[in-house]
């Protein structure tokens, strides 16, 4: 049996090695993704995002554990966590510390935790995060929690990747203007104020409640208003409600066609990104390195604009001059 078959048969080391191949974008990893693709599209991808120190890892830990003991399917669900931490832009190294908060699920054979470095990608997830999620999906993990880099104002990339996004806030991180600015409220399918046992939690809840009232005026049912929940991940308080909200959002997406729409958008974007990369490669190959250099020189000397040059290149490459 090769790595893909072994991973599909439930061999965890094979799965771990496959994830490495895919993360490193090796030829074997790419071939594996092609083979696994027909088996993907089943898992519920749940993003967990928010500022650093809001408790995303602790919450992921609690949620994974809660889904393991949900008892809504037999055999019990296998749950995965993909935890992304930033790579250093200077050395390329990374310190991945999310497992630190996931000790009580790390011994459960039905939970697979994988730490990922962002490897230069911005937007809260790594370039290979979607691909790793597909592998885990094909291997039967559902749900798959994707914990983003903690930043707070830029990890909107998770919306494109996940079916449901849980935005985690905590008391004492700044005034309500921060929450408006962030744009992070707009991406929330579920809003959680974690560390609800800390002083100031009521203020944070009130500020978010006000924000939601502004964004979703009473009587307008155009968009679904995200539930606002409170939790204390360290004790597990409020986790049950979050689990329920995640399951409800999944059902909502399935009912309204949102699930399919999100899938289609994601696959189309992936296809288009790959197509443009392939076309650029084709153009480079066809034009030859000298012509490529000459064209870049003409652009640099402001002789032609980038868009004129691109149009010219397309005409030549597509053979429709």
């Amino acid at each position, binding site marked *: 049996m090769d790595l893909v078959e072994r991973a599909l048969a439930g061999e965890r080391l094979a799965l771990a090695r496959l994830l490495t191949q895919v993360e*490193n974008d090796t030829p074997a990893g790419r071939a594996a993704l092609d083979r696994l693709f027909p088996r993907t599209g089943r898992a519920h991808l749940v993003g967990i995002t928010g500022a650093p120190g809001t408790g995303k890892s602790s919450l992921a830990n609690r949620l994974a554990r809660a889904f393991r003991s949900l008892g809504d399917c037999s055999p019990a669900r296998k749950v995965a966590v993909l935890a992304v931490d930033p*790579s*250093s832009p200077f050395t390329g*190294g990374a310190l991945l510390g999310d497992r*630190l908060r996931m000790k009580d699920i790390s011994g459960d054979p039905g939970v697979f935790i994988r730490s990922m*470095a962002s490897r230069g990608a911005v937007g809260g997830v790594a370039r290979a995060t979607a691909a790793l999620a597909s592998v885990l999906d094909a291997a039967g993990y559902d749900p798959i929690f994707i914990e983003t880099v903690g930043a707070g104002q830029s990890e909107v990339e998770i919306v494109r990747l996940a079916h449901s996004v849980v935005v985690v806030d905590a008391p004492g991180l700044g005034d309500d203007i921060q929450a408006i600015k962030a744009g992070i409220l707009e991406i929330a399918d579920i809003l959680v104020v974690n560390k609800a046992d800390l002083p100031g939690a009521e203020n944070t809840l009130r500020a978010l409640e006000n924000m939601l009232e502004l964004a979703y005026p009473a009587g307008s049912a155009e968009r679904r208003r995200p539930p606002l929940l409170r939790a204390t991940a360290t004790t597990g308080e409020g986790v049950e409600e979050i689990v329920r909200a995640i399951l409800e959002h999944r059902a909502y997406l399935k009912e309204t066609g949102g699930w399919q729409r999100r899938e289609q958008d994601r696959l189309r974007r992936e296809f288009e990104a790959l197509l443009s990369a392939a076309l650029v490669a084709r153009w480079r190959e066809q034009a030859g390195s000298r012509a490529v250099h000459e064209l870049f020189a003409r652009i640099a000397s402001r002789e032609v604009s980038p868009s004129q040059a691109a149009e010219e290149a397309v005409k030549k490459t597509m053979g429709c001059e």
Partner: protein
Amino acid sequence: MTDRKIRVLIAKPGLDGHDRGAKYIAQALRDAGMEVIYTGLRQSPEMIAEAALQEDVDVVGLSILSGAHMALVPRVLELLRANGQGNVKVFVGGIIPEEDIPALKQAGVVEVYGPGATSETIAAAIRSALPDDIVI
């Protein structure tokens, strides 16, 4: 071109509660361009082996100050082998009496570092212990 990084698990087995050394090494190896997974205090050998498996690491660094290294280290090595990860390079750091070092190496530890070992030495030893196809 593939983007291969050295992946290292830094773990503290046993019950001592002092992780300054482990954190220092974790940070130093990050600065040396490696991807370092830090799992924190009070890890059982089983937890360490499981994390090494899920993370598919190339290297495991164990920091032990409790004196229990002769029990903990061979157990971690045994579990790694049982999981099919006998190729993972294991390094030990902490307070390890000189006379225990040969036995640890015999058991499969690549190198043992005490106080005063520099991070450059350790990073270089990790690189030279790994096969050439891993670059960083």
